[in-house]
């Protein structure tokens, strides 16, 4: 038995622990997905009629549903990431992580358990949101390749945001602050091309919206699902995901390896 098999085995055990938590308390997953679903319904049925007549390419409620679904998917991912930060912080404030740290197990396994568990949770949230969008009349034109690429992108974004949330959960001293810190992630998709074309925004906001990471991700996702082409935003989306993942992973690892606070 070598270090790697131990790391894999311990990580699998920790992933199992996270899944058990999810099965035992499905209300958290449902609440996180529910948040995005409520936003979807709100935008489509309350704003959709008005937006459909003027917002860029959208000329009807159905068009607007098509336009915002990728943005709502990102909100679902960000909500799931919020759940990650909360569960990491909960773990850290209870004695259980101190116990894990004094056992001869692979150190990384505690974080791996959270990341894999949260990744699954994020995908579940996105699947629920997509399911509701399909029921409302969302009709993507993507072929199998487009769907697969979209799934890959959702996975990459989730991976990046989950690692970022792990770090945010670790840096928080209390569970309360862990539930507040990632809040901007949930709002960031609103300040992108997710809900209105950036051309309609005032200059400063427009500049921000065009350069923030959610815009290329949403543009790419929209292009893949609707088969309209990604217009070069794909490279930016992938680069953002890779960058955020790397920085967050290094940050989280550093936070986890430091001595726990007295």
């Amino acid at each position, binding site marked *: *038995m070598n270090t790697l098999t*131990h790391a894999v*085995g*311990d990580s699998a*055990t920790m992933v*199992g*622990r996270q899944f*058990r*938590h999810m099965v*035992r*308390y499905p209300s958290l997953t449902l609440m996180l997905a529910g948040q995005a679903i409520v936003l979807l319904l709100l935008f489509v049925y309350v704003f959709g009629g008005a937006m459909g007549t003027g917002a860029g390419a959208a000329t009807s409620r159905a068009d607007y549903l098509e336009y915002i679904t990728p943005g709502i998917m990102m909100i679902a991912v960000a909500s799931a990431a919020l759940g990650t930060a909360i569960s990491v912080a909960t773990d850290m404030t*209870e*004695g*259980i992580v*101190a*116990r*894990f*740290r*004094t*056992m*001869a*197990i692979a150190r990384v396994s505690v974080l791996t358990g959270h990341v894999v568990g949260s990744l699954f949770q994020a995908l579940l949230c996105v699947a629920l949101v997509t399911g509701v969008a399909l029921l409302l009349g969302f009709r993507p034109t993507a072929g199998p390749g487009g769907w697969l690429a979209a799934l890959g992108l959702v996975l990459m974004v989730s991976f990046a945001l989950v690692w970022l949330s792990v770090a945010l959960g670790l840096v928080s001293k209390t569970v309360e602050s862990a539930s507040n810190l990632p809040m901007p992630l949930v709002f960031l998709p609103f300040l992108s091309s997710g809900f209105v074309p950036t051309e309609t925004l005032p200059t400063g906001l427009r500049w921000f919206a065009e350069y923030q990471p959610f815009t290329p991700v949403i543009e790419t996702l929209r292009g893949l699902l609707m088969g309209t082409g990604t217009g070069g935003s794909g490279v930016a989306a992938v680069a953002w995901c890779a960058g955020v993942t790397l920085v967050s992973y290094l940050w989280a690892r550093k936070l986890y390896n430091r*001595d*726990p606070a*007295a």
Partner: protein
Amino acid sequence: MAQHTPRTAITATGLRKSYGDHVVLDGVDLEIPAGTVFSLLGPNGAGKTTIVKILSTLIGADGGRARVLGHDVATEPDAVRAAIGVTGQYSAVDGLLTGHENLMLMARLHRLDRARARRRTAELLERFDLVDAAGKPASTYSGGMRRRLDLAMTLVGEPRLIFLDEPTTGLDPRSRRGMWEIIRGLVADGVTVFLTTQYLEEADQLADGIAVLDHGTLVAEGTAAELKRRIPGGHVRLRFTRADELESAARALGGETDDDALALRVPGDGGVASLRSLLDRLDTASITPEELSVHTPALDDVFLALTGHRGTDENERKAGR
């Protein structure tokens, strides 16, 4: 593991730790023989938990060296971790999992195969009286049950050295006695126990060796009996009905008089032999006290005697440590 057990379980020299300007440990030396119960006695904030954290590889020391079961805590943390078990002050159980699942989680992390994991889990649930609660989430357990589950989880890996950080703080007297029985059982199995406590009585009941920690330094070490001998807090109090009885008793026995209460305070450990000789002397002088009471030293007396200050002041605000 076919490794031989070193005769010394823990050696530490000059352990130091500070948080900012606050010095928590200021040069602590320890030598703990294997197979014994060692008790670190001290008030909240004395640095007990910090020592446990350093020796159990949870945090690093700023200075000094420590070896646990022959391994250096700083350079071979995984070898130390493989041989120890830690039950901290705050229960380290997964509240969302059941008692059974918590133990199975530990068994898996100790890489027991499925059959052995199940056997060990069943055995520990039985031993810690948790069979009926095994299927319930640990968050629904009472304080005493959580502690028992916590300790059971620590024992899954059959550690040769166990750290128990204030294992009975916050428990009712019955659960406390139950915990003492469990600790005695561990020692009978040859496990070394490092116990921290705020209660002299607990150290007295369980420990072979005691060290008293105050403001990050050890102020006394020895057996319970040795420590108590150094403490003037133990005394016999005699109360009389008349002032002349008090006077003649004071002449016969010495000690401190309290004229207002008509009481005499005679230093002594309250043991049967010293009490018998005291009563003999009273008999000889034909004095019969109205009332006799034996006062054994409390932790506060220990601190007052050893450090010149009460143990519990200024520490309430640091209780979170």
